[in-house]
């Protein structure tokens, strides 16, 4: 696909130094994988474990990574699979899904932290209204700043589909905001 950017050429699969390689991947993309897991319903208490599972898989399969879809798209696929496994296990164990885990409690008090939490709450409220497939595309494109081609590779859909999901998600988000304004106007 012509739109795919060649990403992270420095992390090629043929790197002779697997130590540096896995470290480099974690350093560069650890936070991304973490967020992806959280957004896929892995709770705050479990995400560290699941992230490690993801990177164990990465470690094992690094030799198979062909670089075509971009590192983040590849990682996202692994993370999504692990998150799904985790959700299944969580369901079996605790008989409750972890779709809406409680947020970590950063100590309040700092204006910046408070603002950030408010922004986060607003953002999550809006995202929560989207259906998961649109949300995934929206998050990867708008929040994670992946190219649309990368997004398509990550979620495993044609570029065209990713495009229309993004447009549709955007329209819904705009509508949410408009509703929010309307409510604020009334109150």
């Amino acid at each position, binding site marked *: 696909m012509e*739109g795919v950017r060649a990403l992270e050429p420095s992390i090629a699969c043929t790197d002779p130094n*697997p*130590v*540096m390689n*896995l*470290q*480099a991947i*974690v*350093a*560069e993309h*650890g*936070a991304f994988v*973490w*967020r992806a897991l*959280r*957004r896929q319903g892995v709770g705050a208490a479990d*995400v*560290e*474990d*699941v*992230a*490690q*599972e993801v*990177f*164990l898989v990465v*470690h*094992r399969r690094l030799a198979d990574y062909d670089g075509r879809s971009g590192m983040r798209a590849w990682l996202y696929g692994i993370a999504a699979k692990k998150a799904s496994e*985790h959700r299944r*296990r969580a369901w079996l*164990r605790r008989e409750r899904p972890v779709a809406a885990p409680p*947020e*970590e409690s*950063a*100590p309040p008090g*700092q204006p*910046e*932290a408070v*603002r*950030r*939490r408010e*922004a*986060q*709450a*607003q*953002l999550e409220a*809006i995202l929560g209204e989207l259906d998961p497939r649109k949300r995934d595309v929206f998050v990867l*494109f*708008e*929040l*994670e*700043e992946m*190219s649309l081609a990368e997004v398509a590779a990550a979620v495993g859909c*044609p*570029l*065209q589909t990713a*495009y229309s999901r993004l*447009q549709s998600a955007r329209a819904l*988000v*705009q509508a949410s*905001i408009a509703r929010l304004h309307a409510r604020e106007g009334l109150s």
Partner: protein
Amino acid sequence: MKRFEEPIRWLDPRSDAPGELRRWIAEGRDALGPTPEQLARLGEFATATAAGGAAAGGAAGPGAGAAKVAAVKGGQALAKVGILKVVAALAVAGAGAGVGWSVLHGTGAPPAPPAVERPVDEAPKAASALPGPQVAPPPEDAVPAPSTLDAPPAASGTSTHPAAVPLSPAPRTAPPAPATGVVASPSPSTALAPGGAPRAEGPTGPSTTTAGESELSLLDRAHARMGADPAGALRALEEHRSRYPQGTFAQEREVLAIEALVHLGRRKEAEARAAAFATQFPGSAHRRRIAVLLALDGGP
């Protein structure tokens, strides 16, 4: 296939996104991410995993996987155990607010008694009471997670990487950042109470030390002062810049400096410095943090 023009991202000021949405995205998108400590632990895990795989010649891969599955089945954080305490400078590259030096401090820890073969279930908690890795917590808005103190030097029951988890009390294995190895910081890490939540907010250490103050402790000082005394933080950062212009933590210094300038209301300087940063470190993982910092100042 039909070609699509790449849409303009909503974060881009040229887009037609509502302003508050742009701010929500800029400020809210990292909220689900790891803390610097968590990210650093993940980096340590990578180090241990990769080292194990390399040392055991491939056999460690599947073994590690099996161990991990067992850990997850047990519902315990097995894999938090048995990780080398390594100066993982790479892990610093995270996008969090703090930049992870708190963990780097851990490398200056005195040799902990090698806790061996601790049962899986209570290992993290038990080990956190050891006089082991000193991990100064990040100030202010970081989560006061007791697990920060975990990262025990214990090998777990299922020893995944025998080669990677030496019982020798020297937890420094192949530090990728030699410059950080010098963290013989004379400062606050000694204030650690086992299991307690030591704070690095105030100038608990020798606050005006300059001679011999390491690169890292200078940044640490700046970081600790950021909330209450951004001007003081900035001074420490300027000192860092003059002494370690191309230091290992030059990027982190710049991010902190931008933060301090924003706090001081010196927005123009912050922007100029951000622009210089973008030029100097075009691919940096910190650019997102910088964008957030600048968005903060520009918000309503």
